């Protein structure tokens, strides 16, 4: 509750900072507010095991952990956005405000205990993203990305609303607890009313869209490529964490025992998603588009966590999401520096990076290794944990497909690494210095290493 209040107020203040043209204050103020939100999220007063506000929101360990990851990743992205928004952007205050509002939406979504709140959360998360995707106003690709995301996103919202209406029609309540006891009142889910099942399925369709899993992944490469890099990494990390957290919340707290019925569907979709993502990523030249398809593939791995939901902890998915987010942030940060000096966003543009920036190359290499899932980096532990749980649930075939996909992934992640070590034609790349940029990158890379070698640091503290 506290981080939601802090970030909402900070967002409004940031808009005023932008309106009164206090450009210098904008980023420090926003960073301070994000830090405050992170701290207030971990306050013991913030923790509450019972739903608040007439059963609308519940800040239990689950939502607090998700909120902590979302705010932390946002903080890093905001720090790294300095390079991107250094001299441009007349609407800087508004852009930062939209970032913060989007995080607020994610936290509401993950903490919701009511379908109405849930819907409000998903909209607060998405609407700023529509605007942010189109925030580079003079770039046609960015405009296209914003429009595409908006049209498809609002279209899928209709599905979700219809699903909510059908669930409400059969249960007579929006409350998660009421819906859960409604499902419990039937002996097996076969006896559940047809309309209820259709409603749940429609809501799940909206999720599958939001996490950009097949067969609703078509928007993500175009939107990710077109939107500004900072926004793209925000969508691929924070928004996706929120979508996964929301899906978990819905499956676990709302439809509870029924969620096991969807295991086979999730397994098939996960296999499909990771195969499509990895196969498409093989042939990409643009680094952003490659990362977009890699994000589709990772959604596939993460969906394996939805299988047999009732017997397992939700830690593994969150760990995977955190690790994936960090690696993605590093990759985009390196991309930004290269793009600035080369003006090209292609993988070939990375050439000569090692000659001029060995430290950045080191970070990029470790991030790619983590994405590919090579031990001892954190990406390996995340994949390992998810695969082990899938085998335990009896989905060995899915793990075989996932393992094959990991090998495919190594191919294109290593292609990016190789490009960084190749000599450039025009001599080494010159990159202007930005305060604190490398330090944050190195810290992120160290986090990847430490989380990979001591995963219990993450799994133990909760």
């Amino acid at each position: 509750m506290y981080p939601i209040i802090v970030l909402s107020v900070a967002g409004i203040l940031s808009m005023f900072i932008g309106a009164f043209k206090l450009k210098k204050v904008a980023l420090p103020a926003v960073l301070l507010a994000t830090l405050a939100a992170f701290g207030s999220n971990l306050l013991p007063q913030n923790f509450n095991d019972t739903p608040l506000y007439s059963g609308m929101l519940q800040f239990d360990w689950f939502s607090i952990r998700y909120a902590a990851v979302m705010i932390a990743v946002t903080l890093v992205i905001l720090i790294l956005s300095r390079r991107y928004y250094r001299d441009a952007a007349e609407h800087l205050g508004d852009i930062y405000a939209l970032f913060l509002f989007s995080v607020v939406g994610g936290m509401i979504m993950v903490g919701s205990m009511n379908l109405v709140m849930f819907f409000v959360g998903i909209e607060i998360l998405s609407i700023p993203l529509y605007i942010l995707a189109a925030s580079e106003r003079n770039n046609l690709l960015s405009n296209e990305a914003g429009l595409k995301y908006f049209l498809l996103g609002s279209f899928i919202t209709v599905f979700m609303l219809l699903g909510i209406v059908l669930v409400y029609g059969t249960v007579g309540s929006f409350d998660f607890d009421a819906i859960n006891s409604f499902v419990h009142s039937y002996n097996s889910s076969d006896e559940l009313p047809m309309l209820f099942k259709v409603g749940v399925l429609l809501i799940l369709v909206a999720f599958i869209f939001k996490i950009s899993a097949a067969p609703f992944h078509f928007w993500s490469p175009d939107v990710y490529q077109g939107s500004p890099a900072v926004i793209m990494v925000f969508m691929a990390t924070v928004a996706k964490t929120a979508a996964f957290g929301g899906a978990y919340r819905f499956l676990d707290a709302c439809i509870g025992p029924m969620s096991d019925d969807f295991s086979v569907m999730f397994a098939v979709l996960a296999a499909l998603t990771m195969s499509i993502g990895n196969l498409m990523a093989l042939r990409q030249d643009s680094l952003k588009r490659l990362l977009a398809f890699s994000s589709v593939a990772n959604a596939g791995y993460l969906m394996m966590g939805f299988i047999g939901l009732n017997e397992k902890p939700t830690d593994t998915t969150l760990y995977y999401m955190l690790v994936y987010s960090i690696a993605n942030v590093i990759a985009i940060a390196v991309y930004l520096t290269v793009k600035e000096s080369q003006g090209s966003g292609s993988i070939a543009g990375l050439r000569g990076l090692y000659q001029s920036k060995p430290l950045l190359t080191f970070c990029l290499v470790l991030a790619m290794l983590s994405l590919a899932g090579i031990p001892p980096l954190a990406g390996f532990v995340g994949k390992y944990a998810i695969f082990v749980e899938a085998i335990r649930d009896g989905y060995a075939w899915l793990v075989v497909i996932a393992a094959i996909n990991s090998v495919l992934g190594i191919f294109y992640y290593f292609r990016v690494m190789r490009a960084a070590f190749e000599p450039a034609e025009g001599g080494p790349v010159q990159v202007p210095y930005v305060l604190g940029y490398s330090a944050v990158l190195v810290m992120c890379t160290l986090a990847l290493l430490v989380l990979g070698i001591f995963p219990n640091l993450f799994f133990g503290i909760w």
Partner: protein
Amino acid sequence: MLNSYLNKNTMESNVDYLGILLQMAFALGFVGLTMVATHTLGPKRRTAQKAEAFECGVESVGNARLPFSIKYFLTAILFVLFDVEVIFFYPWAVNFKELGGIGYLKMLFFIAPLFLGYLYILKKGALNWEKM
């Protein structure tokens, strides 16, 4: 509740509706057939001028998909926003005496964010028609 209602309906025999269904099919079929028949059989003179979009006598030139200034929308949407907020003043004005000082303070509290919003759009230059 809805569910039991639906079940009750589906339990009744479906044959009752067959007549209505037939009539609907017949009506739709008749309309469709007549339209197709008149369009294909009727005499027609097709000229380039007739195919043009009629624009009140004005010659239609160019593509209709022109980019045009956002400021019309912006002004309109801002007007709608503040107009809607003004509606809340009417019930307050009617009950002004009964609500008393507390009601006045509450209304001030309601207007304050609105005023901040107004400051924001003013500072952003959203109302500056020339510069926008």
